[in-house]
């Protein structure tokens, strides 16, 4: 399942005094099993973009092709799109609504017309991927769970529809540091074990540095950079100019180079940066 976006432009309130270009001629391809990080300052167009991938927004101009299907073709029913692209919004726990966890997670697969047996399998599998014990949690009310558990249940509800593409908008916000790491590891499992293509929208440079295969950088509605982390973090001045930053480890390497160390500044993860500094000292 791949995504091809061509010349996508989205203008809010076109023809009024409030007219604003949110996306400006954006084109890119995403491969079937990619893990893509999407970064950009507030208002850069990230959220507008992801809402186009499952037709929550319709382009002002341009096309969005998901696995060879033009998703804005009126003949394609919404159900076919929902089947392909799952979206997890910010604070998804606010969208829980059922009496029990089981009912909540099974809502999606049932709507897609799956029978009880298949639905049961999907609910079980999704909860387990999110690190929740099926037997313990299935009959609980979503509202008696902790914040972190609620969020996992909400995401399980999207996984249960088995979308080959999943979009997650700031899934780690509000979680404690270890909760953040657990969530990112679960997302990595969805990508590596279930083969789900991931689009992760985040403000955290560290998260995309550690987890994404490729990073899209948005600024003022334009896709200004798209490549592997090594390439995107290579130019810290460029990122600073568009209100972003680089991981601290990367910044330490750059400062050392300025101080005259003969050091390779291309590492962007903590471990690789440590290895490079130790190498310089012959350790």
């Amino acid at each position: 399942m791949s995504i091809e976006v061509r010349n996508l432009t989205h203008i809010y309130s076109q023809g009024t005094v409030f007219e604003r270009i949110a996306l400006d001629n954006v084109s890119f391809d995403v491969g079937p099993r990619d893990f893509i990080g999407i970064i950009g300052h507030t208002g850069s167009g990230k959220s507008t973009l992801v809402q186009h991938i499952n037709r929550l927004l319709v382009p002002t101009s341009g096309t969005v092709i998901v696995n060879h299907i033009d998703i804005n073709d009126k003949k394609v029913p919404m159900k076919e799109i929902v089947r392909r692209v799952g979206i997890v919004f910010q604070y998804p726990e606010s969208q829980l609504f059922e009496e029990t966890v089981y009912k909540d997670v099974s809502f999606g697969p049932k709507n897609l017309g799956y029978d009880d047996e298949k639905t049961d399998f999907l609910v079980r599998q999704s909860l387990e991927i999110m690190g929740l014990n099926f037997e313990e949690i299935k009959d609980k009310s979503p509202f008696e769970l902790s914040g972190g558990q609620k969020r996992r249940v909400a995401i399980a509800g999207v996984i249960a529809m088995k979308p080959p593409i999943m979009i997650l908008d700031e899934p780690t916000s509000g979680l404690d540091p270890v909760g953040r790491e657990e969530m990112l590891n679960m997302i990595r499992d969805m990508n590596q074990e279930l083969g789900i293509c991931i689009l992760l929208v985040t403000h955290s440079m560290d998260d995309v540095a550690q987890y994404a295969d490729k990073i899209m950088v948005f600024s003022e509605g334009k896709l200004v950079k798209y490549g592997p982390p090594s390439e995107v973090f290579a130019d810290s001045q460029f990122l600073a100019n568009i209100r972003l930053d680089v991981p601290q480890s990367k910044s330490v390497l750059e400062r050392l180079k300025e101080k005259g160390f003969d050091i390779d500044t291309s590492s962007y993860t903590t471990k690789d940066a440590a290895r490079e500094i130790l190498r310089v000292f012959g350790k």
Partner: protein
Amino acid sequence: MDNTIIKLENVSFSYESGDNPVKALDDVSISINEGEFVAIVGKNGSGKSTLAKLLNALLLPSEGVVLVDGMDTSDPENTIAIRKACAMVFQNPDNQMVATIVEEDVAFGPENLGLAPHKIRTRVDESLKAVMMYEFKDQKPHQLSGGQKQRITIAGVIAMHPKCIVFDESTAMLDPAGRADTLKIMHKLNDEGVTVIFITHYMEEITDADRIIVMGDGKVVKEGTPKEIFADSEGLKKLRLGVPEVVALGDLLREGGLDIPEGTLSEEELVEAICRLK
């Protein structure tokens, strides 16, 4: 001279939840001095936000006493004076704005204090300048970025001239630049004498705090300077917390045989420490 501004004495708090109440805070005693910059960290559900709400009488303790600027929060006569002394800035600026024009939003608080119009004008201007948003005074809040909106909510709080401001995850929804701006303003206010209490999940943001209080399961489990707190990566991990990336990098270098002092917290310090080894 006693310059304590916040004092919690053996405070417990329980949320009603069906038949069995949930204890969110369990026998907590904390004392914060005027002018301090105190960070509060802890895993989800550790009681941080409950603690914050107790500091300006949004919640009242089930047991124990909370004193704000010497006033007992459980006395309803004190509530207004307490909220004037100790203000709060929350996570989502959109939930905290009340007016359709920036300067009107900032004026909302001072107007409610019943100040004379020219005094309100002065306070609004001063506050907007303090957060570097004066030139946006005639704009509509919805046209601003998240970071700019958060600065406006802070201006609204400053305009009340509080002695103490509690920031409850106020940087969580902002992009890196918005987060840096907000942090800078918090330190500037603190330099001018305002007591700052900052609740956050981002360890990088609190390396300059005077003191860090670590919460776990409704109790204070640790208290100390950033250097003391971040010296124990393993212990923090057990509490579902972490260390700033610079500290993690320093730890790896030390394990690899470089003599990096414990308590190296900022990029500058780490770079200097490495340069000294050259």
